[in-house]
């Protein structure tokens, strides 16, 4: 059996990669993808703990996290489309004023 720490290290690595993506990329869609990567890293940690602590609650929580992530993606992509309609760009460096 693979020890818990191995899964947590993978989860931590993926989370930090997601953070680096959010901080360094300029396209709004790639930033959004990095946020999804962070959510998946958290899910992996939850399922790893669920197995190590002999509880099914971790997997139930992952179920809810996935539902919330799906809802967030739908609304977030709608927002990005609306912004693109008005500004013709997805570069977050250029979307720095709420209204001009």
């Amino acid at each position, binding site marked *: *059996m*693979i020890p818990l*720490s191995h*899964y947590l*290290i*993978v989860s*931590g*690595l*993926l989370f*930090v*990669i*997601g*953070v*680096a*993506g959010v*901080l*360094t*990329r*300029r*396209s709004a*869609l*790639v930033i*959004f*993808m*990095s946020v*999804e*990567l962070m959510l*998946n890293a958290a*899910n*992996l940690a939850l*399922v790893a*703990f*669920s*197995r190590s*602590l*002999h*509880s*099914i*609650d971790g*997997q*139930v929580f*992952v*179920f*809810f996290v*996935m*539902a*919330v*992530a*799906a*809802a*967030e993606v*739908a*609304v977030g*992509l*709608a927002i*990005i*489309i*609306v912004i*693109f309609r008005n500004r013709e760009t*997805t570069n977050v460096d250029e979307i720095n004023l709420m209204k001009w």
Partner: protein
Amino acid sequence: MIEQVFFYIFAVVAVVTGLLVITHRNAIYSALFLVGTFFCIAGMYVLLNAQFVAAVQVIVYAGAIMVLFLFVLMLLSAGEATPREPLSAQRFFGFLFAALLLLQTLMLFHVVRATGQPGEMTQEAVRRTGSSELIGEALFKNFIYPFEVVSILLLLAIVGAVVLGRKRS
């Protein structure tokens, strides 16, 4: 032993494709690498004896969310390869803070001994009953209130996305 081989394959491919997601210039390639990451994570869920979560991961994340991403990428024509961004101060500090966060995260595993109250759902119990049945039982017995709230949340997301996507007349 075979389990360890699979774990290392899944872990290395997940981390490598994750790095490619954030570094590749073409956003569509990033989306496809993210699908690869999701599949590797689903493989790790199967190794953790969470087959239902693995199936839901492939169906929902790789099958619905990433398809939505690709639709929007194609609609906005955001798939052209952007020119290589210069290494500005913001990118340097972004990578620096991510590296510091990585150091902190790895230090946690040496310093903190996370202990909890172990429950009774041991691996044998889960294998005997099946993870789907156990998750369904927990959802409808202990987590019935969050379950109903999540259904309302999904309704809100649908209504919000439709309202946002309307053409302003």
